[in-house]
């Protein structure tokens, strides 16, 4: 085992911040390449006319998931040292629903809004301003629903643990699911394009 490099002490906190800028650089670069600096393209996901969000997201998830799996079975990456956020099921489902509604209203998510703003989109900047306001609001009223926020705490739970499946099998199932989703997305886009021509 030699990775994660940072956890094995290969570099210090100061260097980790430089690494952060470069990782972010790649993140922002590919988000913009995909067209995610454009709120219209992102929102089109919810009208079935352009399924790029689903395709990019699931391709990225599958790529990283398969990479992590193989690097860990080859003994290069210690998966137990990769940080997994603990699950609080009900607040996370609630948060997801609110975030989905915010997505279709605002046209971005926090990461894509940064790319939109940096490529000059005024709606991206308005969204970023909204983010600051929303977080300030959340912070100020946090004490009112702190109990809800920490409810249904399940600790660190992964899908293989939940379904009692071997990790590799779960990885395989997610790959199959993603392929199905890609096929459905391609089919749906063609259908919508044909409908538009009618």
């Amino acid at each position, binding site marked *: 085992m030699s990775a994660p490099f940072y956890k094995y002490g290969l570099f210090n906190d100061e260097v980790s911040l430089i690494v*952060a800028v470069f990782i972010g650089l790649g993140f922002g670069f590919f988000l913009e390449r995909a067209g995610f600096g454009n709120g219209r393209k992102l929102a089109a996901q919810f009208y079935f006319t352009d399924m790029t969000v689903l395709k990019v997201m699931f391709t990225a998830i599958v790529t990283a998931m398969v990479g992590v799996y193989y690097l860990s079975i080859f003994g290069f990456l210690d998966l137990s040292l990769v940080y997994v956020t603990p699950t609080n099921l009900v607040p996370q*489902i609630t948060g997801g629903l609110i975030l989905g509604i915010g997505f279709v209203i605002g046209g971005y998510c926090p990461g894509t809004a940064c790319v939109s703003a940096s490529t000059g989109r005024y709606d991206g900047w308005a969204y970023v301003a909204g983010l600051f306001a929303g977080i300030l609001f959340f912070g100020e009223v946090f004490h009112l629903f702190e109990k809800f926020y920490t409810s249904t705490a399940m600790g660190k739970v992964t899908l293989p643990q939940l379904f009692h499946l071997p990790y590799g099998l779960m990885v395989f199932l997610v790959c199959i699911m993603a392929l199905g989703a890609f096929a459905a997305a391609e089919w749906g886009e063609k259908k919508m394009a044909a409908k538009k021509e009618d």
Partner: protein
Amino acid sequence: MTSPQQADGFAPKPYWNPYLSGIGLGLVLLAAFVIMGRGLGASGAFSSVVAYGVQKVAPEHANANAFYAEYLGDGTANPLKDWLVFEVIGVFLGGFISGKIGNRVKGKIEKGPRISSRSRLIYAFLGGGLMAIGAKLARGCTSGQALTGGALLNLGSWAFMISVFIGGYAFAYIMRRQWT
């Protein structure tokens, strides 16, 4: 003199194939796992900035608040010297570089044809506000939960991701005038 070809040189170039961009994004995420032992994020950086701002304006108020305290740490380090804050600075830079290469950096508003610019900006602001609340409740946004936790097969992240799509599709009809 500008020939049509030269003029084309300034037209926005098409976006990349989604699967290709997705692989690029996935490799960046994988690099974050391998190098740092953590994934990507976005909303956390904004929380650090807000917590820092509140602490500057009202230090006692910020320190007494459990939410801000999480981002302020023990007071020995500047809250802005945070991994996600630097990562998000990189996101801004990376987006700009890609936009420049693709001739896509332009001051404009992205919206459908049936809505005024002013309404679009108000919706963008409101959407950002709602999204922030959702992301804080869920302990992360599309980057920190959906992408990162998705790739690590985290239960909470997958429940979150499915909920995001449900919320978006459920509300899409109401918002159709903004986009279509």
